């Protein structure tokens, strides 16, 4: 069986090649072969995949948590889709246009689309979803659509977004994962959070819910009336919730699962399987969920008010080592507050970098007035790694050893998720806090929240946890929110990256990359920027 | 009151019992039990009398074995039989009553079931018939309201009643030989008499050979026809009860009677106060007469070799070079 590479566009591939150390599977193939061997999809078959944790709801309009993000796009469509590089493409909307002042966005909707219950999809559904669901109940939607004043519905197939000020980031957040369109006839006038349809989804999507065993499995079946003619190719998708990562590996290896998305296997297992001829590793298709592992300095702590201490710490941590040994190559050493998948804005040009240099680190600490004490210790710190996944804890263990060499005694504190969130963002009882967070389809959505002084909101998780405040940064971020000119926006973010990396309130540790590992027979699961977080309508099984 | 001599029912010849390949615990044992006769087997605790009884029944623990000699029941050598064949004799031609009625019965089975079981093991009997017969047996051992007691579990019965049940089990298949190992020791004095009475009458009615193991010389005098005295794994003296007790020939028997004229061996195995020293454990038994180290009458030849069994009158034997007492 020949390897397929049409999932990777050239730039992703080059980025991967340039930065990741050794990824068997993807590496060594020529990008030129991408479309050469495309096969005709076959209809039918069941795709089995595994994930964890189990889902609470079936739609991602009322929550931003992970399990829903994966499920929702199978049942619900968004207005738009995104090709590699986050290039908009039609979904429920076939055409869209932005007024000159950026304050009106008009969407022409696809005719003939039916909800799973047979009702017709209209602009009323769009207006309802944005104004009454996403603006109210969606974590990111609340800020993203804060300036969305109304959705006008001149006819059934036209929806006009009326904005208080231009919102360039908004257009990157209209897919079925970020902004799924819900049926107004089911939800209007009900308590949306407690509507039974939240676990019995009625969407316009490629798949319908066949059965759901809470905490155990979801079975999706093909929507025969899907608007995208002939799709989806699969008859069924079975999703099993399996808590133990090694069990998930065993299932994939034993053929009891066909494919595993979203790094749900231990990295070493992913690499091991990728080296086997029957399996294929794909690293594309996670652009909307690009995540950074980063470490917040609590700037309310006296010791961190001195930038030299922050710089010293940055010099003590070899981020590439963490990429190699903690993430096992699934990532790039942290170099910017953005993620490299945010290609339009990401840059390292003129952005200060902090190479591993323990001597320099020690010198900076001496300079900052923290000499080594009699026992060789300068001062003591605590780090709180997020309990989500092993990588933060493992990285913290590495950082502890590095700190020991420059005379900082670091204590690791683990706790469960609730305590972690409360400690870092509500009680603000931490020195260093290490976690992985999504950077969003656009920096305004995902990055701004960590650096904007107006987003220093104790009690709000994953807000500006370092309590960083720099008027210049605030101005840049605020300007970029409404800047319609892509070039100007790029400049604004470039400047932002330089300042943020100079002030270093938060140390970007790793720009993580995600991987899909599956049997070769599973084809076309990643055909655009959304990858498995799209609807899998193009996916098919060979044989 | 000596019964007419009959062909031996049980004949134990030169029997030795060993622990593994070690020294014999019981050696060169000889005695007989005749039909319709009660033989009292007496000795201190640890002298091997219970072992002997278990050997006859073929119930020695796995690490014990009969290393020489024979046990003949009605002419059949039991030591030559396999466990399967032996099983046909146990509970059937020979039966045994144990010392502790409180623990001899299975606590989780009704007494009736335990009687029925032995009947069905050896007789072709339907359940109903066996139950009827079991109730008869319970009546025969004089258990009141036998039909109701049939359904009781052992813990509901008193010790005496339980011993009656054990006896009923033993006589269920009309055995020729009944071995009773200290059947009354654990019972109240008043009950003891009743049980002995019962055994005696059953023995008489059924013409049983009864081997009564006891440390109580009083009981022997009361019930037995003949007596076999054991010391340190060996028979030292044998004969008719009255003859032996009135005129002991072996210094050990004499010492016993002198110490406890009415008496009883100590149940707990304490040494007898009036005989110096203690019973030697099997591994340090003397080469000569077993009793020699403690014997007031010991002479040089006693140390040399075990005294042979010598006849000392009609139906009477003693193992001693220098018997005491008046010759018969």
């Amino acid at each position, binding site marked *: 069986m020949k390897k397929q590479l049409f999932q990777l566009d050239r730039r992703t591939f080059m980025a991967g090649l340039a930065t990741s150390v050794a990824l068997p599977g993807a590496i060594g193939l020529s990008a030129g072969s991408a479309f050469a061997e495309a096969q005709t999809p076959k209809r039918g078959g069941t795709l089995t995949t595994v994930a964890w944790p189990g889902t609470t709801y079936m739609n991602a309009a009322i929550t931003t948590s992970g399990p829903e993000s994966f499920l929702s796009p199978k049942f619900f469509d968004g207005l738009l889709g995104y090709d590699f590089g986050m290039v908009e493409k039609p979904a429920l909307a076939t055409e869209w246009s932005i007024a000159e002042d950026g304050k009106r966005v008009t969407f022409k909707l696809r005719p003939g689309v039916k909800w799973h219950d047979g009702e017709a999809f209209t602009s009323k559904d769009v207006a309802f979803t944005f104004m009454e669901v996403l603006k109210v109940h969606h974590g990111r939607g609340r800020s993203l659509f804060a300036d969305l004043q109304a959705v006008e519905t001149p006819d059934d197939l036209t929806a006009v977004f009326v904005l208080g000020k231009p919102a360039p980031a908004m257009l990157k957040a209209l897919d079925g994962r970020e902004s799924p369109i819900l049926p107004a006839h089911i939800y209007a006038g009900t308590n949306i959070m407690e509507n039974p349809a939240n676990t019995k989804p009625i969407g316009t999507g490629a798949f319908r819910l066949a059965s759901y065993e809470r905490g155990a499995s979801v079975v999706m079946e093909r929507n025969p009336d899907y608007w995208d003619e002939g799709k989806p190719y699969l008859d069924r998708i079975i999703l099993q919730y399996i808590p133990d990562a090694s*069990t998930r590996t065993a299932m994939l290896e034993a053929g*009891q699962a066909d494919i595993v998305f979203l790094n749900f296997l231990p990295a070493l297992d992913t690499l091991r399987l990728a080296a086997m001829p029957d399996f294929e590793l794909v690293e594309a298709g996670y652009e909307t969920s690009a995540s950074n592992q980063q470490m917040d300095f609590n700037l309310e702590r006296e010791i961190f008010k001195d930038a030299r201490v922050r710089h010293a710490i940055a010099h003590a941590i070899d981020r590439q080592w963490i990429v190699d040994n903690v993430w096992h190559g699934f990532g790039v050493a942290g170099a910017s507050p953005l993620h490299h998948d945010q290609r339009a804005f990401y840059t390292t040009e003129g952005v200060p970098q902090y190479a591993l240099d323990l001597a320099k680190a020690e010198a900076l600490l001496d300079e900052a007035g923290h000499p080594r004490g009699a026992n060789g210790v300068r001062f003591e710190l605590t780090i709180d790694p997020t309990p989500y996944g092993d990588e933060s804890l493992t990285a913290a263990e590495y950082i502890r050893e590095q700190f020991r060499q420059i005379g900082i005694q670091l204590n690791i504190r683990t706790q469960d998720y609730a305590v972690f969130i409360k400690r870092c963002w509500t009680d603000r009882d931490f020195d260093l806090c290490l976690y992985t967070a999504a950077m969003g389809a656009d920096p305004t959505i995902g990055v701004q929240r960590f650096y904007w002084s107006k987003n220093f909101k104790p009690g709000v998780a994953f807000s500006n946890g370092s309590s960083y405040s720099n008027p210049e940064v605030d101005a840049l971020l605020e300007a970029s929110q409404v800047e319609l000119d892509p070039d100007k926006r790029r400049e604004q973010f470039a400047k932002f990256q330089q300042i943020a990396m100079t002030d270093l309130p938060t140390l970007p540790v790793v720009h993580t990359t995600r991987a899909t590992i599956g049997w070769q027979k599973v084809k076309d699961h990643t055909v655009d920027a959304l990858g498995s977080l799209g609807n899998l309508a193009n996916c098919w099984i060979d044989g | 009151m000596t019964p007419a001599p009959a062909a031996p029912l049980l004949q134990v010849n030169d029997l030795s019992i060993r622990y593994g390949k070690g020294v014999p615990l019981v050696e060169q044992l000889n005695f007989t039990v005749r039909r319709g006769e009660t033989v009292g087997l007496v000795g201190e605790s640890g002298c091997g009398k219970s072992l002997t009884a278990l050997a006859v029944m073929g*119930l020695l623990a796995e690490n014990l074995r009969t290393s020489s000699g024979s046990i003949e029941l009605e002419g059949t050598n039991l030591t030559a039989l396999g466990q399967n064949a032996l099983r046909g004799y146990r509970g059937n031609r020979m039966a045994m009553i144990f010392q502790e009625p409180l623990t001899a019965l299975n606590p*989780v089975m009704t007494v009736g079931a335990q009687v029925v079981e032995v009947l069905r093991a050896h007789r072709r009997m339907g359940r109903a018939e066996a139950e009827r017969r079991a109730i008869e047996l319970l009546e025969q051992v004089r258990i009141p309201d036998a039909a109701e007691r049939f359904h009781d*579990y052992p813990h509901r019965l008193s010790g005496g009643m339980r011993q009656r049940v054990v006896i009923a089990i033993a006589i269920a298949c009309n055995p020729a030989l009944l071995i009773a190992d200290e059947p009354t020791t654990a019972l109240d004095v008043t009950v003891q008499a009743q049980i002995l009475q019962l055994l005696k009458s059953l023995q008489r009615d059924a013409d049983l050979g009864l081997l009564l193991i006891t440390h109580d010389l009083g009981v022997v005098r009361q019930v037995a026809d003949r007596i076999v005295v054991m010391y340190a794994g060996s028979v030292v003296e044998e004969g008719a009860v009255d003859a032996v007790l009135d005129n002991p020939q072996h210094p050990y028997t004499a010492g016993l009677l002198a110490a406890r004229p009415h008496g009883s061996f100590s149940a707990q195995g304490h040494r007898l106060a009036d005989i110096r020293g203690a019973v030697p454990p099997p591994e340090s038994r003397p080469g000569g007469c077993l009793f020699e180290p403690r014997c007031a009458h010991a002479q040089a030849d006693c140390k040399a070799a075990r005294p042979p069994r010598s006849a000392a009158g009609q139906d009477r034997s003693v193992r001693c070079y220098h018997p005491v007492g008046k010759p018969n």
Partner: protein
Amino acid sequence: MPRYVLRRLSQAVLVMLLVVIGSFFLVKMAPGDLVDVLAGNSDMTADQMASLRVRYGLDQPVLVQLFIYMSRLVMLDFGYSPLNAAPVLDVIMGRWPVTAILVVSSVVISMTVGTVLGVISARNAGNPIDLSISILMLVLYATPSFVIAICFILFFSVFLGAMPIAGFATVGTQATGFAYAWDVVKHLAMPVAALCTFYVAIYGRIGRASMLEVLKLDYVRTARAKGLPERRVIYVHALRNALLPLVTMAGLQVSALVGGAVLIETIFGLPGMGRTAFDAVFERDTNLLLGVLFISSLSVVVVNFVIDLLYMALDPRVELA
């Protein structure tokens, strides 16, 4: 009998009351609550968090919360599980059977296998068979169940490709009746076996000791003296008595098995009570955790009551006093 049952019932109620109060305070000891978790998952404002706290009653003093919880419990209202977006009782009813089947079959199988091994061992006391069984027991006893579970998966599923790894039954199966039952058996074989090993060792060791003890007892000798076949002596007279300590043990083990199920359910992806409790702890789904603790404790109490009755049936000496 009624007096005994009444006594046991009142004890059970008291025990359950202690369980509820104890677990309630344990859960409330936690820093951080459900809303913190929800907020972590979906970017909430402080206002929204406050209003959620009001909605879930988390703004009340702890004692008031306890009172409200207990008065609802009396009506069998276990509250709502935000993690599952469903009433706690619904969630538990979906998961209880998985754990119940897992635990009950483990008790039955480990007792049977353990007893058989124990009896074989006891009857061969001191010889090589006994020695090898005893060593096997020790190793089973000392090896954590999760190690065994992982070995099972690697060998039977990955290497041999013979056994389904995860779940209670094939997902989306249309099978019914016998075919479905067989499907479930295949799915549960490895989890049950992995959960059993430790208890097989325990029962085996106790069974061996108990059998040796019983075989020395007078009534076994009596049975032999009756001329009963050896089979009957062992399996009717000795075994039934030797089982008694094992039955007592089973009562104690049920609760431990439910605990051990956490690991097994985690590894084999079984949606049972143990894993649910584990997740509930970390998602601060207080109602769910309390519900799981309550229902599993209640099940343990009921099973123990049944075991008591069984014990009485096995041992007539235990009077209903």
